């Protein structure tokens, strides 16, 4: 009840008076029916599955049998907490996030600042950096599998040329995850790059003019004006990147199949294997819920950071 009246009270009274008069006779189901088509999809395929996931996590549900199966209580969760394979998969996801986020936040920032200053041919940079982002992960995987090939691959050829051996891009368990980070940086940098370019448009050019008149060098202007003024964009890019990285699956599954020897298997692939290979739907649902909670916590932390940033300015 209180929630429904809140938006009306926050609007300036004078401005809304006329609107409400025109609308009041029709304050009926019509307005709700504008929202309901979306809500149907939202409930059936987003919130519904989430609730269903929680329910399943308390049962020993099997993929091949109908119904929920026997009640498990917190059995799935207690088993999960002792499951090394699950936690190592969670660790791979977190490690991937920790390693992939810094380059995907800093590199596009650098690219955008430099490209924004170039007068002609900006389309070329947008093409080069953004084009990979719109390609399907499966195509990316095919291309990079071939590039990393230890014998006739493009990178092996280059490494041989400069006299360095192949580090085992995809075969060494200590290297494989970083090879995927390289692929991911190449593939997804364009989105962050475009976000930064957009952020740069909002910086008042007078600031640079004033700084230029005061004798600030290009480097100082970048460091003292551009980067601080992009603070909000940087926060947004970081949030979106962390959340995207926590959902890592495609590249690792398609290029490494989680290998070598499960050394790179991320959380979502563990969930996939558990549900669809081991057929333990209930157990996999419990793991899904834990991953969901982790992503939610990260989202809230960043949301709080954004709030503070905005109220601080």
């Amino acid at each position: 009840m209180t929630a429904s009246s809140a938006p009306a009270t926050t609007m300036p009274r004078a401005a809304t008076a006329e609107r409400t008069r025109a609308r009041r006779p029709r304050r009926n189901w019509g307005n709700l029916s504008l929202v309901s088509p979306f809500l149907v999809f939202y409930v059936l395929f987003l919130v519904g599955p989430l609730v269903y996931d929680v329910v399943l996590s308390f049962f020993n549900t099997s993929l091949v049998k109908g119904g929920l199966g026997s009640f498990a209580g917190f059995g799935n969760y207690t088993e999960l907490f002792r499951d090394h394979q699950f936690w190592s998969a969670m660790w791979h996801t977190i490690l991937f996030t920790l390693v992939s986020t810094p380059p995907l936040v800093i590199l596009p920032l650098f690219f955008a600042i430099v490209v924004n200053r170039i007068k002609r041919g900006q389309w070329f940079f947008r093409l080069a950096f953004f084009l990979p982002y719109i390609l399907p992960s499966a195509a990316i995987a095919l291309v990079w599998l071939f590039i990393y090939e230890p014998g006739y691959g493009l990178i092996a050829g280059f490494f041989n040329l400069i006299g360095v051996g192949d580090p085992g891009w995809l075969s060494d368990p200590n290297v494989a995850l970083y090879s995927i980070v390289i692929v991911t940086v190449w593939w997804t940098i364009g989105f962050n790059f475009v976000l930064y370019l957009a952020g740069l448009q909002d910086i008042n050019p007078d600031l640079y003019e004033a700084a230029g008149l005061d004798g600030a060098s290009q480097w100082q202007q970048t460091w003292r004006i551009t980067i601080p003024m992009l603070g909000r964009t940087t926060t947004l890019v970081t949030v979106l990147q962390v959340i995207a990285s926590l959902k890592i699956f495609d590249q690792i599954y398609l290029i490494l199949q989680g290998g070598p020897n499960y050394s790179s298997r991320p959380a979502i692939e563990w969930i996939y294997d558990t549900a669809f290979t081991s057929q333990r739907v209930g157990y996999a649902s419990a793991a899904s819920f834990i991953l969901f909670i982790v992503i939610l916590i990260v989202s809230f932390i960043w949301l709080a950071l954004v709030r503070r940033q905005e109220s601080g300015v």
Partner: protein
Amino acid sequence: MAVSASRPRTAGRRDRGSTRRRQRASLFTRATTGVVIALALLWLFPIAWALDTSVKSENDTIIVPATWAISHFTFSAYSGVFSASDLGRWYLNSAIVSIVVTVLTVITASMAGYALSRRQFRFKGLVYAAILAGIMIPPQALIVPLFREFQSVHLINTYWALILPQVPAPIAVFIFKKFFDGVPITLEQAAEVDGANWWVSYRRIALPLARPAIAAVSIFTFVWTWNNFLWPFLAATSQTMMTIPAGLGTVTDGVGIINALQMAEAVLGSLPLVFVFLLAQRQIVEGVAGTGLK
């Protein structure tokens, strides 16, 4: 909305005092520009390499060390893809799924965004809060219950399963709401004085104004849906129901030398998106810039 659409082009970012700065800029600017140009070229390498390999003969693809030289130019890998896989069918599936999802998303999200921006109704605050919270629900973490849901109604391996779960995108509602918040309300007021009802206000007045938001949401929804791998990979259990990404994934494990074939496959699988990108490059960039994603 005209403002947000044209902003990236008209913004006076090209500093008025540029001549002064330029004189001082020199080394720092030139060095960084050089580095970024080099990296931009490097960024194109994998794509160029895939294109290069795709028109080689298979024997040329296993030369050590790798070479860009093409001793025998041939399109045989491309024709090979069509005979070795159901690529034509996957194109059709991807097109059907992406287009239907995009249309349904734009319709439902624009209606909801409009209502949340303009209308009063019961539980409005609650509905908006729920939708905002939905942005944080990662669909990838819901594959298991979602699969179970479709399994229980025997719709796995149908278009229903491929399309329906991809429609609810709370972020799209958010984008539309933000957009309508920025549009002056006077036109609708005038229409409502003339007796227009909620549907007419939405369909005849608000929607035509929302073209930039529709363009942005459409393009992103199309690209994301076309590229979605995990869900179609699970929901399509037969070759004939697969989308391009799910299908390409199944051909990675082949026998014999199929490097050129796989590169041709990657190129063909990417082609429609490259096309969309080249056509809509400006809308994509402005979409990110002007729709409140910031």
